[in-house]
């Protein structure tokens, strides 16, 4: 193993502010030559902002970056690549229809009298991949190979570009175990050549297996840098999502176990590599929290429940009767409602008014025979603007002009006005300021007190602790535990997530 203490990358005092949020606050981040460094943190911790600053997509507000001893002033992605940093994204940046060889040398083709020297291109590609221990046909289009192979082709390109640092952003998130194995063996080879890898993953097992060092970010601040061996799983999770023991203690509330009548049940849900047989029950009027780290399959389960995505296996029952939703419209018909975690991409209708945004899901209720009654619409919208305390100059205001918190309230109102039986909330307080967060949480409790069942997903465990009657804990698409009543506290959640799986106890 190439074990040097020599620094390759030094990011010092990095600050990055966005309107209303400090994404990174004086973050230090170091990578040594020939090491695999894992960057960890939950939603909003600042990982992707840090990566984007490093790769020239964002400009930093403060701080300095040294790469290989020289100041790195990232101009754009291409400039950074030339300086020796290659980035491989989860969504692979290869061109699917072009051959493996073409992709590897794209933009740096071997030429012979102005024409591309195909023979040499193929030979060099073959050699490069052979060196990585891969035996594939370089003339076939990239799209004919699976994601793992595609990632490795991207790696081959990176090594050929003489990258000193390869950034792999959630490279393994759609891979199965065997594919991960192959990828890791290649990462070990690259390491042996003195190439450093910055690896981002949410799978704890992988992190402990591949990492030499781990840097943890939380809420835009660096928690610390650790050698892989010096942290236990529990410590790692605590540092990522937890609070100090004293803080946890102060929040502890005594609560009773309550019984709720059976309502919704999901049995043995499987989907791709993300869900491997998850079970979930929700009682009438119950607030169930779905706890787990990013990538644990929480969102996938919620979407399947709502009919937004298809499942491979498993059944969903309402009051004991199986249902088959192929469309969200059908789930809505059964009284389900779903707030997506990504407000911009699949929450708001960005060019439409607050009124239309709020009423889109209950047009059938507020309009008679499909015909708009402006007065009934106004009454309904005004009622919910007051009820959830939305701050907007008028209901005809374009929703994009509202703050994140107020947008989120409009989306909550969208579902409240259809009077749902089950409200699924995926990260309802993400990306909004602290004051609005508190208000949203109050609303959630208010909704629950009206007897509406809630499935709450959140990366902030204290949010789950404060609001849930019961917690279902998932990891890597499995159930790993359940917490009820007095058992619900942050420490227990982390302990359940951290516990070793039996088959790994070797």
């Amino acid at each position, binding site marked *: 193993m190439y074990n040097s203490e020599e620094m390759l990358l030094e990011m010092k005092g990095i600050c990055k502010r966005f309107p209303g949020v400090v994404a990174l606050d004086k973050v230090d981040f170091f990578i040594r030559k020939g090491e695999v460094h894992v960057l960890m943190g939950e939603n909003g911790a600042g990982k992707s902002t840090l990566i984007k600053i490093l790769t020239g997509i964002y400009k930093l507000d403060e701080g300095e970056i040294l790469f290989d001893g020289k100041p790195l002033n990232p101009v754009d992605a291409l400039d950074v690549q030339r300086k020796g940093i290659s980035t491989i994204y989860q969504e692979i940046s290869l061109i699917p229809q072009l051959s493996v060889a073409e992709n590897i040398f794209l933009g740096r083709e071997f030429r012979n009298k102005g024409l591309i020297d195909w023979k040499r291109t193929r030979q060099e590609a073959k050699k490069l991949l052979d060196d990585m221990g891969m035996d594939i046909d370089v003339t076939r289009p990239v799209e004919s190979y699976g994601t793992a192979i595609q990632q490795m082709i991207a790696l081959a390109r990176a090594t050929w570009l003489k990258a000193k640092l390869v950034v792999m952003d959630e490279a393994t998130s759609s891979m199965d175990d065997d594919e991960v194995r192959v990828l890791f063996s290649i990462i070990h080879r690259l390491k042996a050549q003195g190439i450093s890898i910055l690896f981002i993953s949410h799978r704890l097992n992988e992190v402990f297996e591949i990492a030499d060092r781990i840097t943890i970010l939380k809420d835009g601040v660096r928690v610390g840098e650790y050698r892989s061996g010096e942290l236990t799983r529990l410590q790692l999770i605590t540092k990522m999502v937890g609070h100090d023991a004293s803080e946890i203690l102060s929040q502890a509330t005594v609560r009773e176990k309550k019984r709720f009548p059976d309502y919704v049940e999901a049995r043995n849900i499987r989907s791709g590599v993300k869900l491997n047989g998850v079970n979930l029950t929700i009682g009438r009027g119950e607030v169930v929290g779905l706890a787990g780290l990013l990538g644990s399959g929480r969102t996938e389960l919620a979407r399947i429940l709502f009919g937004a995505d298809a499942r491979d296996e498993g059944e969903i029952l309402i009051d004991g009767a199986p249902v088959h939703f192929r469309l969200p419209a059908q789930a809505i018909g059964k009284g389900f409602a779903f707030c*997506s975690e990504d407000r911009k991409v699949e929450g708001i209708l960005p*060019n439409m008014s607050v009124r239309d945004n709020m*009423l889109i899901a209950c047009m059938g209720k507020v309009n008679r025979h499909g015909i708009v009654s402006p007065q009934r619409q106004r009454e309904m919208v005004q009622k919910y603007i007051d009820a959830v305390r939305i701050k907007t100059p008028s209901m005809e205001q374009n929703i994009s002009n509202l703050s994140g918190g107020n947008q989120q309230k409009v989306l909550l109102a969208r579902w409240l006005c259809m009077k749902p039986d089950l409200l699924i909330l995926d990260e309802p307080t993400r990306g909004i300021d602290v004051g609005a967060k508190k208000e949203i949480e109050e609303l959630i409790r208010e909704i629950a007190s009206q007897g509406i069942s809630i499935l709450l997903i959140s990366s902030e465990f204290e949010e789950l602790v404060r609001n849930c009657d019961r917690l279902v804990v998932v990891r890597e698409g499995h159930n790993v535990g359940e917490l009820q009543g007095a058992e619900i506290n942050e420490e227990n959640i982390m302990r359940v997530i951290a516990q070793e799986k039996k088959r790994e106890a070797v």
Partner: protein
Amino acid sequence: MSTQIRQFNLQKYGALIVLVLMIILNGFITPNFLAIGTLWNVLIQAFPVILMALGMTMVIATGGIDISVGSTMAISSIILAKLSIHLEWNFGLSLLVALLAAGAFGLFNGVLVGVFHLQPIISTLILMVSGRGIAQLVNDGVVISFYGNRYTDMGVYRIGGVLPIQVVMIVIAVAVVYFLVNRTSFGCYLQAVGDNGRTARLTGVRTTQILICVYLLCALLAGFAASFETLRLCSADPNNIGNNIELDCVAAVAVGGTSMSGGKAHVLGTVVGALVMQLVTTMVNMNNIPYAYSLIVKAAIIVVALYLQHRKD
């Protein structure tokens, strides 16, 4: 803030300002332009473009486009003439079949876009090309003319001897589409599909059905416009009717302020846009300017309209 308001108004009323300017300009340079007869003629000539641009507005508001409307006109026109003139069917029945044919085209487009998620421009390219071929085959590419026929009165009918029937139909069609877009759930859904299709689906909008309906409506409007044009012109010419009309329709929508990427549908803006396009043609015709110039002027107007839209984004 004040620049914001100014931009907004320019965006909203830009097309209207251009229309007024063109009317004033024509008043000076075009002989007899302001005579009431000329104004009626402008509207009669704008009739097909206005009707079809209304359908196009809905399609474009969903984020799509329908370039097959010219061919849809051709098929409706030739079927109407073939059945009612050659085969001497009852006129109402002939019209019904002509509209059904247009509806079939619309359904085909809607299914490709809504069910199979093909790109709208490619989906509708299929019928743009083959639809005209089918229309030509109906009567072996021969024009059907029917001067002095009892149906021809309908195409030139004027209420009270003054108000052309086309003007009445324009008013009805605009009112119906305006109502549909602004005062029904359907109208809200179609704009939601264009504004953010993923959100629309997640809020229970049946996007497939909406898309099929929208392409269907667009084709039906084309079929209806074609039927009346056929009566007015006393001929069904599958080779030429509706040639390039899809371009005028798209241009009318763009000039009218509806975003090409979907979202808000500006029905009245489209009407103004269609009138602007027609005025360009009229101005060129009545001043003996070569036709080619009208194409260049239209292109310039489209560029300006898109520039204004782009500034907003």
